[in-house]
């Protein structure tokens, strides 16, 4: 008995020893920075900010599924009805607009390059007429050819802000419409009355503007120029299956749950030499309405590749990542051309009186505002509207935010006396329910304003309808006395016009789906117009600062935080870099290692 036992033990020990030796040798075989057997290049070593201003883990290897998740739902997958930055980034996977931002790291990503068109626009000497020629042989996912008339139709339908509520209003503002209101109102799909856009042949499209605009290529970049065949347009239902011209097409779309893109066999990479798209994955899946903590967790566990909203990880996740060097190497930090701020509603008394608004400007604890967004790792205290990234930025601090970061109670009380409310007043603060930082902001505002007698009640509303039904709906905001509305804004493109116009131009104010929550000043409008026709760059940039100054003088908005964010970069991603155009990872170049 004993001897057998001993032998068994010896065998067991030998087996274990062998096993250990085997394991150790396998471990030695494994690569340095990553697990995969780097097909298509060495595995790069992950490090902090490896995806900033350079491509991390470059690759040309095709294949795999890119898994993305959204903590809410898209405002719309319809390129003519969407306004979120991440949506404009992602939409390039399934549509092509006339021109687009180059997919490259660093400064190059602010460059516009031709996509559907052969080259950037050809302008008339007075910058009021712009001509584009479409490339040959572009087809939709069903093989039908793309015609210039389809681009004309796409722009036409996007004009109707009653049907397609969300998108920008640049075409409404710049085209010489002569009263044309889009094919839903006009009911003529041949668009005879839409003389502002001409299509003399199947490949040429000419835009006639009502005022000069030297930056019209930025409008040609908009997803609203992605072609839509009139015969296949289904209005508000078009978002359920958008006809693709890009490298991917919709394979499935479970509304509010998830959608899947697969390769569009009619996309010809040879027809796309300039943009830098790589179309590496075979499939892209996007889960919708996923809890934000889940997203952060799945990113870190490798179950998810990208958090599509591009706003970075939650404050608490950021805290863990930044403190742990083993996690920090998988992250990239980015300054954003984004401002977190709170808007007044001048139609809600007593905010019709500028002194009551100034009282709030003085009473706010700006440090508290910053802490709501994660303190110094979330950004810095903003003193005026334009973020520092925008060329022409000038620091304007009319209310001493920097010298008095916790507010100036005495000045606030003085302003209250001047507006006839010496003991304070009551109002409501609205914010987007899903955004923990906005809830924290609302609570911080409530605490600071209470110190001067301004009593507030908090009113959360869902994020995807915040603009359409709630805070951005003029009637709703007035009726529900949303005197203060917590919000944020990122530049449509990195210049003063791209940041300011949609939030300070009174002419973009509409009954619902607003982005300009409060500014209605003809002098500001006039300055905006002047800047558009000023061809000298330095002079134009000076005008943006002047507009910023006027907005601050009018106390229309309460600036909060110039934003920074932390993006998590899972190990298996290839070709990762931050595009300055959208201040998040470029979604047309990402690939996955298997």
């Amino acid at each position: 008995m004993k001897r057998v036992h001993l032998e068994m033990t010896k065998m067991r020990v030998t087996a274990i020893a062998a096993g250990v030796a085997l394991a150790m040798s396998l471990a030695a075989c494994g690569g340095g920075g990553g697990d995969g057997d780097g097909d298509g290049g060495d595995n790069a070593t992950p490090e902090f900010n490896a995806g900033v201003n350079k491509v991390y883990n470059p690759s040309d290897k095709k294949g795999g599924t890119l898994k993305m998740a959204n903590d809410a739902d898209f405002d719309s997958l319809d390129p003519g009805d969407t306004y979120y930055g991440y949506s404009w980034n992602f939409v390039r996977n399934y549509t092509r607009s006339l021109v687009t931002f180059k997919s490259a790291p660093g400064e190059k990503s602010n460059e516009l390059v031709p996509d559907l068109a052969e080259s950037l626009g050809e302008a008339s000497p007075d910058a009021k007429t712009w001509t584009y020629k479409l490339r040959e042989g572009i087809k939709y996912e069903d093989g039908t050819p793309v015609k210039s008339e389809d681009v004309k139709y796409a722009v036409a339908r996007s004009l109707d802000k009653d049907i397609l509520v969300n998108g920008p209003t640049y075409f409404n503002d710049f085209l010489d419409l002569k009263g044309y209101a889009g094919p839903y109102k006009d009911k003529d799909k041949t668009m005879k009355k839409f003389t502002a856009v001409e299509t003399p042949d199947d490949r040429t499209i000419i835009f006639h503007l009502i005022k000069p605009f030297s930056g019209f290529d930025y409008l040609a970049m908009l997803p609203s120029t992605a072609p839509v065949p009139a015969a296949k347009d289904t209005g508000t239902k078009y978002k359920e299956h958008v006809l693709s011209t890009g490298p991917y097409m919709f394979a499935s779309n479970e509304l509010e749950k998830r959608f899947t893109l697969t390769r569009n066999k009619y996309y010809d990479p040879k027809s796309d030499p300039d943009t830098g798209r790589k179309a590496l994955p075979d499939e892209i899946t996007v889960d919708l309405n996923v809890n934000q903590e889940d997203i952060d967790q799945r990113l870190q566990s490798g179950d998810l590749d990208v958090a599509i909203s591009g706003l970075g990880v939650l404050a608490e996740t950021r805290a863990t990542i930044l403190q742990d060097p083993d996690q920090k190497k998988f992250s990239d930090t980015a300054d954003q051309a984004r401002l977190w701020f709170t808007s007044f509603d001048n139609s809600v008394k007593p905010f019709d009186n500028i002194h009551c608004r100034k009282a709030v400007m003085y009473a706010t604890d700006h440090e508290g505002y910053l802490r709501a967004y994660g303190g110094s790792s979330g950004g810095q205290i903003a003193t005026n509207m334009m973020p520092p990234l925008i060329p022409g930025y000038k620091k304007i601090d009319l209310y001493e935010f920097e010298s008095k970061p916790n507010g100036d109670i005495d000045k606030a009380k003085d302003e209250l006396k001047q507006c006839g409310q010496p003991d304070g007043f009551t109002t409501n603060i609205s914010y987007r329910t899903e955004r923990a930082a906005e809830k924290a902001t609302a609570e911080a505002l409530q605490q600071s304003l209470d110190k001067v007698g301004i009593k507030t009640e908090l009113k959360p509303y869902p994020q995807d309808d915040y603009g359409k039904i709630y805070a951005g709906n003029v009637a709703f905001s007035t009726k529900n006395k949303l005197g203060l509305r917590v919000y944020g804004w990122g530049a449509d493109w990195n210049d003063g016009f791209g940041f300011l116009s949609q939030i300070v131009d009174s002419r973009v104010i509409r009954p619902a789906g607003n982005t300009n929550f409060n500014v209605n000043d003809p002098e500001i409008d006039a300055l905006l117009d002047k800047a558009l026709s000023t061809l000298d760059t330095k002079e134009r940039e000076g005008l943006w600062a002047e507009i910023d100054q006027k907005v601050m003088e009018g106390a229309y908005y309460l600036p909060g935080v110039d934003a920074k964010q932390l993006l998590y970069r899972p190990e298996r991603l290839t070709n990762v870099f931050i595009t300055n155009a959208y201040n998040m990872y470029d979604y047309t170049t990402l690939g996955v290692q298997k």
Partner: protein
Amino acid sequence: MTAPLETTGKSAKAPPEATLQGASKKAIQGRSLGQIAWMRLKRDKVALVGGAVVVFLILVAVFAPLIVKLLAHPPNEFHYDQVNEATSLPINEPGGISGDFWFGVEPVNGRDLFSRTVYGAQVSLLIAFLATLLSVIIGTVMGVIAGYFGGWVDAVISRLMDIFLAFPLLLFALALAGAMPDEVAGLQGYWLRVVVIVFIIGFFNWPYIGRIVRGQTLSLREREFVDAARSLGGRSGYILAKELLPNLAAPILVYSTLLIPTNILFEAALSFLSVGVPAPTATWGGMLSDATHWYKVDPWFMFPPGLAIFITVLAFNLFGDGLRDAIDPRGR
């Protein structure tokens, strides 16, 4: 005669009234239901502990403002010095607990969790009690009418109860709380929300009490004392009020006590889903909702509200169970 039985806990059989343990050598006298129940209850240690906790919680809820004023910081006051600026986490480990902040502080704003938990007791118990009261009033009235009059009256009321029981309460609460206007009947903000929540929980939970009362009434109305009263000329109203209700008091009390924890959980669920009492008022459910954001880096934040709900619900359940067993140990 058999020797008096030792009784321990809830599973013991009840001895005949006249031979209850503890009776001295005095002349045997009949004991009221209340006295008997109290003696049974006294023996049930678990229920007594539950009861003591319940009393303690009620005191905490009632005296919340005083407790917080004397011992801690105002519940909505921010304390940035307690929170790390860059990570938003409490500076003291774990969870910000210190001599000054017994339960720690909330991330980002440094609010005192002790104060918020104590005030949370006020909201939870206030709403639960009021809602239960509403259910009891409606349930008793409907149950007694159904049980006493029988016939088509009973049929109608019973069907009503079925309908109310089938109602998807949480969905309705979500919809109503979300669609509420700012001001109704002169109430707004905090109190409007409280009233609406009390109404939703109380109004839709009445069948729970209603069925019990109906059952009790059905059995009681056949008893001799009712016949006696009727034969003496007592009208229905008199019988209902003076004969039946007093006998219903006990079961109503028991089932109310058991209903309260359900209502506490319900209010916590509504707060958790952000349709309960609005921020920044401290509610246990609301605190839990916020705490789930931080569980990975500050798990302690979940403990004060989570434990508070757990202990409260457990205490009420244990006490209610003990009460039920004391009053009617055979009926389960």
